[in-house]
């Protein structure tokens, strides 16, 4: 049964709650970029992905590569909430012996396709998986989530060129355009604008949406899946830290977790919007 828009919106906030719990319990990790991607992750895992949590290695599954591996918490939350492993395990994040490593590790957690954490490498990996799909005449799609700051790594643009050259229409990239990276505003660190024009120049279909509007995310995915020739990038305008007032647009919460009082406030705000 297909999840409704309001179900997905609710799921997104559940993922946010998981992220706050996990990172606070761990005392380290990256909440800001996890929260900005929560709506897109909820759309993927509860609506768009053709996957089977009880059979994570099903060969016709859609694939998802988390290129910005530091937001592992939101990936783990989405995997657990969709049934890949028990949600109770989420709070073991970053602890010695846990499967839930600080950055995703292929083969360690069901549903994690690739090892990431060093920025700029995921789109190339996704290209390889998409190319296999083309060679083997498979119908699956490959989704890849990129940070905006991450796009400063040159390898992304090598991959972008490759995807166009090999007509990887089965490849769909998301850019979490929250305009923040570790040191602050992306445009101060190393300007990315005009970002859509860069992707267009590399031959990609470009769709620009509000990354916190579930309907727009779904429609963008449907449009992207219809592409016959070109890879598609969905540039999501987002707010880093979305859903927790004091974290929103606050670069400090890129790699910092909640103190006890902040934790209480965050949980309260999120519980108010969860049905």
């Amino acid at each position: 049964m297909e999840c409704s828009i309001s179900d997905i919106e609710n799921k997104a906030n559940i993922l946010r709650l998981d992220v706050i719990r996990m990172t606070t319990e761990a005392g380290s990790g990256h909440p800001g970029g996890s929260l900005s991607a929560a709506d897109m992750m909820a759309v993927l895992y509860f609506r768009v992905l053709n996957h089977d949590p009880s059979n994570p290695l099903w060969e016709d599954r859609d694939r998802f590569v988390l290129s910005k591996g530091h937001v592992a918490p939101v990936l783990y939350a989405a995997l657990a909430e969709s049934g890949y492993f028990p949600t109770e395990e989420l709070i073991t994040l970053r602890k010695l012996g846990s499967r839930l490593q600080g950055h995703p590790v292929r083969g360690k957690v069901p549903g994690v396709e690739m090892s990431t954490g060093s920025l700029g490498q995921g789109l190339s990996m996704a290209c390889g998986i998409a190319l296999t799909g083309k060679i083997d005449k498979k119908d699956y799609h490959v989704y890849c989530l990129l940070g905006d700051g991450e796009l400063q790594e040159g390898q992304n643009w090598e991959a972008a060129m490759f995807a166009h050259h090999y007509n990887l229409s089965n490849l769909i990239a998301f850019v979490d355009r929250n305009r923040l990276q570790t040191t602050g505003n992306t445009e101060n660190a190393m300007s990315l604008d005009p970002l859509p024009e860069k992707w267009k120049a590399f031959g990609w279909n470009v769709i620009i949406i509000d990354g916190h509007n579930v309907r727009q995310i779904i429609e963008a995915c449907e449009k992207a899946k219809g592409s016959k020739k070109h890879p598609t990038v969905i540039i999501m305008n987002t707010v880093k830290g979305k859903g927790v007032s004091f974290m929103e647009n606050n670069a400090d919460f890129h790699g910092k977790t909640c103190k006890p009082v902040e934790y209480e406030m965050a949980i309260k705000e999120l519980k108010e919007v969860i049905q």
Partner: protein
Amino acid sequence: MSEKKKLAQRDYYGKALATLAAKDSNVIVLDADLAGSTKTSEFKKVAPERFVEVGIAEQNMIGVASGLAASGKTAFASTFAVFASGRCWEQIRLSVAYPKLNVKIVATHCGISVGEDGASHQALEDLAIMRALPNMTVIAPADAYETYAATMAIANYNGPVYMRLGRSEFPTIMPEDVKFEIGKATVMREGCDVTIIGVGQMVANCLDASEELVKEGIEAEVINMSTIKPLDIGTIYDSVSKTGCCVTAEEHSIIGGLGSAVAEFLSQELPSPLTRVGTYDVFGESGSPNALFEKYGLTAADIVNAVHRSIDKKTEMKQ
């Protein structure tokens, strides 16, 4: 055990950079979106006009640094050790090491003490791959004070340097006003039964181990090998000639780092029993630094065990 002050090396790197910013107008510092973590932000506060942000683009950072150096600047480039050594290794090889340019690659967040971020962020092979490059000087200070002195020393040296620093606070073991000479090891403690050579954060563990060994009647000579290349072979030769056996200790793989460097020298010039403490050809994982030091065999107790092994071998060989 020691009640030494615990300080983070990266903080003292930041302090040294701030001093250099005021003192030497030729110094330029490059950052790849981690200034707050590597502490290059301290340089920016004093000399913002000579602080260059490159974004998340380590390969470009090294290329730009080489160009700055080729036109007369002293370029410091910093990021986490995995990225500083690994992501741009071939850029370092061609743009910096080959033309012998004045670029200082100062890498923070080395080794398994990075902790919770996990294996993707734990550089355990950087000494090996940097040491393999001709013209490269490789330094890993033992504490925060030595980091300050080493930063000033490499700023005065004209040529490529890779310097490895830790993230977390750990005990200081050198005097606050320590002087640093590139290529010169420090004998921290004299002894005649075994030579223990440590590097970086592990030197403190070597000293702790030597205190344990005293209780067993074993007198260890402890050496801080803060320059791994060029290796201070004179100090090693003198010490191992006296003690007859050796242990190395590093927060790094046993492949290619300090242990390998010492093994290469001893096997050719002074064959002696050697036991290497380090990670044994594995990636790390998430966990607290202390728990990881235990799990991966990097504690003072592990060094004590290694000493027993080397001394046993020495005894066997005499029989």
